[in-house]
């Protein structure tokens, strides 16, 4: 039930963030600093989420089949594969490595 609450708060915040752009005078948001922070934060969060999902297991760091997924995804992206193909490559690599006995 608790999770529902955070889901709904996240939804409200996401919508309000979008809406702010329509109501706040452009001058306030057009500060180069704020725009730059919004940009670097997007990059930083996505990099962090990639790493956490690849090597974190609770509070430990492990190298398992997910590393294979990371490499496969990078190769697919480098070959300019579309998003869905990249995701499937990641899943296939992890599943295959597990089938071969690497947890």
């Amino acid at each position, binding site marked *: 039930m608790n999770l529902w609450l955070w889901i709904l708060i996240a939804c409200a915040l996401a919508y309000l*963030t*979008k809406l702010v752009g329509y109501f706040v005078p452009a001058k306030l948001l057009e500060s180069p600093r704020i*725009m730059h922070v919004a940009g670097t934060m997007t*990059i930083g969060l996505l990099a962090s989420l990639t790493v956490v999902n690849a090597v974190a297991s609770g509070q430990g760091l492990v190298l398992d089949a997910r590393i*294979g*997924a990371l490499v496969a995804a990078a190769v697919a992206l480098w070959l300019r594969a579309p998003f869905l193909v990249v995701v499937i490559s990641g899943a296939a690599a992890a599943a295959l490595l597990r089938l071969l006995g690497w947890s």
Partner: protein
Amino acid sequence: MKLRESPAFKVALSLSIATGLYGVSFGALAVASGFDFWQTMVLSLLLFSGGSQFAFIGVVAGGGSGVAAMTASALLGLRNGIYGMQINAMLRPGGWKRYVSAHVTIDESTATASGQSDPDEQRRGFWTAGIGIFILWNIFTAIGALAGDAMGDPKQWGLDGAAVAAFLALLWPRLKGREPWAIAAACALATILAVPFVPSGVPILVAAVVAGVIGWFSHARMDEGLEPDVDPYAEKHQRDRGDKK
């Protein structure tokens, strides 16, 4: 102009199909991360911003708390506020239309509109991509969630690997130039260093702080990382370059 002849309409339509399709991966991953069908659908219907949705379920999948998931998702959605400002300046939607256009202000709709110079084309591109993706993204989220439910052990199918791939694919288009790479590397390192010392989910917020500090003090191009992560006109750009030869 007939809608079928509008370049922005065509681009928006194909982008809607491509983006909508990967709603399948969101639906399947959400269910594999322990979300039920309706929680998954509410994220796609109401949160409706791919990166933030993946962030929310990614934090929970890693054992993080609801607060951490909400914070990561909200911070990742900050760029949508800037997109809102850009679309507002471009289309000037009035009355109730503002509230609808705010909801469909995402990477893809912003990119489609800002790639056009004619105001009518910008409007067509924005609304077609925004509404088209909203409809297809939700249909395919539902399909993914139902399929994920039927799949059994998510690890056997490599769904945790799919999550890794999804985040890398969201990050990849933003890594243009040296500064974005440096930020990504610094934040990845900060994450790894933080993992053993703080509760799950918090390392992501540590990385957000690092990224925020870098952004605040560095003086690179101001829109770095802020260009929407898709270039709907990539093919056309390639053609244009080809013509010049």
